[in-house]
């Protein structure tokens, strides 16, 4: 902590900030526990035969997406971020979705070649 900071170099810490941060800390701990439970759930689900390997893959990816959502939403503060960050991420999501569709399209194309 600063011993003798000048007025322009002091971190503004008031009661409201402290209260808000305490609220954040409680939330971080809950999310941390939820992520640990999610990890155990992922391993447990992988040991269960849901009938087909495809269903197992979907279950694992759904749990991973939920865990990823918790990290992005709470740890990276995306649930209350500025509009510009959302714009950057929306652009990324657009191109990432395009990339996934390109992958699916190439797989479908490969299947057609195999049938012929």
């Amino acid at each position: 902590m600063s011993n003798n900071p000048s007025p322009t170099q002091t971190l503004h810490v008031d009661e409201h900030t402290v209260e808000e941060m305490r609220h954040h800390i409680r939330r971080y701990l809950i999310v941390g526990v939820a992520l640990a439970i999610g990890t155990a759930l992922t391993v447990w689900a992988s040991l269960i035969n849901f009938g087909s390997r495809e269903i197992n893959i979907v279950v694992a990816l759904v749990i991973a997406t939920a865990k990823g959502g918790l990290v992005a939403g709470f740890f990276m503060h995306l649930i209350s971020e500025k509009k510009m960050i959302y714009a950057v991420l929306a652009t990324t999501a657009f191109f990432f979705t395009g990339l996934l569709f390109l992958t699916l399209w190439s797989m479908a194309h490969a299947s057609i070649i195999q049938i012929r």
Partner: protein
Amino acid sequence: MEIPYAVKPRPDTGLYNAKVGIWLFLASEVMLFGALFCSYILLRVNAPEGMWPHHWLNIWLGMTNTIVLILSSVTVVLGWASLKMGQFKRYKFYQGITILCALVFLGIKSFEYHDKFIHYKVALKDGRIADGHLQAAETTLPVFWHLQPVIVEGHLPKDAKLTDKVVLEGWWPKDETALMDPPLDHPTESIEIPASQIKSMENYGPWHNTYLAIYFTLTGLHALHVIAGAIVIFAIWGPLAKVWEQDPERYVNRVEVSGLFWHFVDLVWIFLFPVLYLL
């Protein structure tokens, strides 16, 4: 001239420069890892039936590493929140744990990599396959331009030429398909194979098959991110800690930005773990 909005947020966007910068960088990282994930999907889906490996990685080590990264993400946000409340010592404590977690993660990953490099598949001339960890191999190695007889343990150097026998701690899979999906608790035995009976011998490095190629590529790239993130967090935590004395708001911003990168590294691992270890 001072660069504007390096510390204080710009009024119209509500963001300081570094925060915009890190999010743009993370956007590019999403595309980098996204492209590799798509490569994984293509390789996985197009693999011939029964030729995609299962149980080649230790689930419990992977799970431990996942928990370690989650813990480190929690300590990063707790450290940031402590700084926002002006509690520098608490921040130092929490980020110290983050750095330790990074080292534990890398230690476990190194152990897993080593395990793959000393794991060999030996194809015999009579068609049988032996699979296991190399205990000893009698070879010759070039030492000062002369071939010298050496007993190698663990990992065969590239220039090694087998002379007598190879000893593995392993098992005899009945065919390639059995090798792809070994039982979780198959018994192992000490296997001694004369060098004259060996047709080929290869360890489980990235060159072994497409699964290990994509495994080493994805986890290697991720490990590089862990190393980079840990170095930045350590630099802010240690050598650059004096910035807290001089300009605390700038210091909090640095912790926040490095934390965002660290959470992204955690996020990527959350997807890598089930995809590589469990499916």
